[in-house]
């Protein structure tokens, strides 16, 4: 892995179509600048985000993830965000228990009218993750899979 002079966190944002994606559009319309570290993946609803998406994003090298959708009560699909919230209520502590800093997975409610909040949120995530540094734990295990030696991943004592 090339040594970078300055660490720029790589952030993936999973956004719901109706609120946060539209909020991000509004930030664009308002020409509100924010840090460019984020790559957005749009889904109809936060309720449609499977935790596997998040794991895969880490496997593909994300240093931080943002999941963002409609405020409670505002879900375009009535209750999608409520179900999503339940999911994250258990998934987040699970990752934390496995030694993943919960700050690397952040959640927010950003409505279609909150372009400003989108800017604030994404800058917040970028700054937080920048302070945390690269996600070394995952970088290591991502690299092992493509390591020449299968044995590196084999015995119980390769630490």
């Amino acid at each position, binding site marked *: 892995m090339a040594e970078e002079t300055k660490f720029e966190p*790589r952030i*993936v944002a999973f956004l719901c179509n*109706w*609120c946060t*994606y*539209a909020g*991000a*559009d509004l*930030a*664009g*319309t308002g*020409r*509100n*600048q*924010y840090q*460019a570290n984020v*790559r*957005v*993946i*749009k*889904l*109809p*609803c936060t*309720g*449609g*985000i*499977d935790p596997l*998406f998040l794991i*895969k*994003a880490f496997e*593909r*090298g*994300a240093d931080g993830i943002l999941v963002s959708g409609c405020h409670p*009560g*505002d*879900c*375009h*699909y*009535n*209750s*999608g965000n409520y*179900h*999503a919230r339940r*999911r994250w209520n258990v998934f987040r502590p699970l990752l934390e228990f496995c030694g993943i800093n919960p700050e690397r997975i952040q959640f927010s409610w950003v*409505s*279609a*009218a*909150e372009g400003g909040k989108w*800017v604030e949120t994404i800058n917040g995530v970028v700054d937080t993750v920048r302070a945390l540094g690269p996600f070394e734990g995952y*970088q290591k295990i*991502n690299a092992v899979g493509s390591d020449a030696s299968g044995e590196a991943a084999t015995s119980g004592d390769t630490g």
Partner: protein
Amino acid sequence: MSKKIGVFVCHCGTNISATVDVEKVAEETKKNNPRVAYTTTYKYMCSDPGQKLLRDKIKEEGLTGVVVAACSPKMHEHTFRNAAVKTGLNPYHVEISNIREQCSWVHPDIPTGTDKSIDLVRMMTEKTRKDKSLTAIKVPVTKRALVIGGGIAGIQAALDIADGGQEVVMVEREASIGGHMAQLSETFPTLDCSQCIMTPKMVEAAQHDNITMYTWSEIESITGYLGNFDVKIRKKARSVDLDLCTGCSSCWQVCPCKKIKSEFDMGIGNRTAIYIPFPQAIPSKPVIDRENCILFKDARKKNIKPNDSKVCRKCIDACPIAPVKAIDYNQEDEIVDVKIGAIIVATGFRELEDGLYGEYGGGKYEDVITGLQFERLASASGPTEGKIKRPSDGKEPEIVVFIQCVGSRDPAKGCSYCSKTCCMYTAKHTMLYKHKVHDGHAFVFYIDIRCAGKSYEEFSQRAIEEEGATYLRGRVSRVYKKGEKLIVLGADTLTGSVVEIEADMVVLASAMKAQDDAEQFAQKLSIQYDKDKFFSEMHPKLKPVESSSAGIFLAGTCQGPKDIPETVAQAGAAASKVLALLSSDELEREPVVARVDRQLPPVFSTCIGCFYCQKVCPYSAIESEDIKARDGSVIKTVARVNEGLCQGCGLCAATCRSKSVELEGFNDEQIYAEINALEFN
């Protein structure tokens, strides 16, 4: 077979190309992306020649997938998908990479925005690679529209739809239709009498064969979807039987509770407990105000049925209908179920509460009134029969000060937006005042005069030049009482002087606000609203009357401040949308729906039938299906999606542990491909 993907990068004039090196995006994509067969850039992809370019290249290059790197998909996804259809390409092989709202407009640094654009394009080409051809879903349409709100917007929309030959159900929560327009005295810029132009429309709506009207009623719930809504209407207990009552007025004439502030008259006039809101009310049949009626108060106190109270029975005694009286104290709320194909929301606005501006004496001094209160004063059918009398002592005011932008354009206290109508109605108010009080003097404090409508500027100039209203550019800092006079302290920024006016009456041009319950109501309908709680249109320019939910349209001030002509125009537009919708027996819907895995025997489906999907589905769109052997025995019970009910949220897909449910358009492979294309490692 692998896809041939074409990438079209839009300059958007300079909107994108000023901060994103679009040529580089196209070049890099072409150079490095093995899936991409063709790339180009174009000044305006959404223009006719842009779309033609897209169509031509699809044909020439034999493209089977298209990514347009341009503005937000919310703007032109539809445009480009339609363009693709004309070449015979299934529209769902066209994806938008949002490099304007997400790159060029928010990242000023060219290399940064360019790199990000390249990434976003790559992610979208990967998704496109996994796009499947989808066919629009056909659903039957219930040929009946619901109009919520009986103001001018609702009435106009209902009439347009009804005249178009479709059934309309109209729901109004007040006792009469008419809304705010019925309250107005005269209307700008023609000064014709509001009642005179409004009442015939109200009557027409009430008598129209295609319109069923529910007044004193509210929406209890709305479920279902475009073409097939199930609506529950709560008919609030009116205490009067609308079928029996003839509106003879005997009851309200005998009612002893006469000092109840009239909502219709904005509190400057009184009404009785059994009342019609105004003489021209439709229906012209009363309602009992159960909060204030002494019979109901007594019944509540004694915890008895209202009809068992004997405190006052004047109205029922006066009712000439026999043998069954038209008044029924024990009447209860009733729920009516209706099937609806499309909905128009026309729930209107409310006026900013006058108490908010304490420094102007709002809510404190009787003679500081709002614009709508002035309308009632000026109205021939108002409490003063059109005579301008100040509320405190009934004197004719000699000097009236009008303050504009009360609440509007004041983010600190009120609303950041312009209420749009106040400049015009204030000008109108000065004229009405001057017409009625010939030697009176009208002063107007304003920030800017905004009169952008047809004949509006001329109207406002007339107020100044012909009617002699004194316009002062500046804000009022304070209004206080000195004896019988109201002292208005303000600034005239044109002369740079402080102005002090001894006024007899002050009229505040209060802002138009969203209804108090707009937020809850939007949630009930699953439609979006903006920061000010006005309902959001689907697109600010291209879909101004569509709400964010398919089949629900917006008309009038529930969407934002507007005047009558604009409201009527929007209502007509919404009605035409509804008519178009109801004109077909079947509707085509976006095929973004969930599907449960089905396979050949012996697997049949990877679904194991735990039905978590069914439990989380907000639309009850998941059914259970028995997969049967030839002898009829059940091999497996699995989930199935009713695509008519499915709205495509994907909740089921994310809940399914074995990923046996997928959402078309956002299926597993598509999302996986997008994540896989991150290439951070």
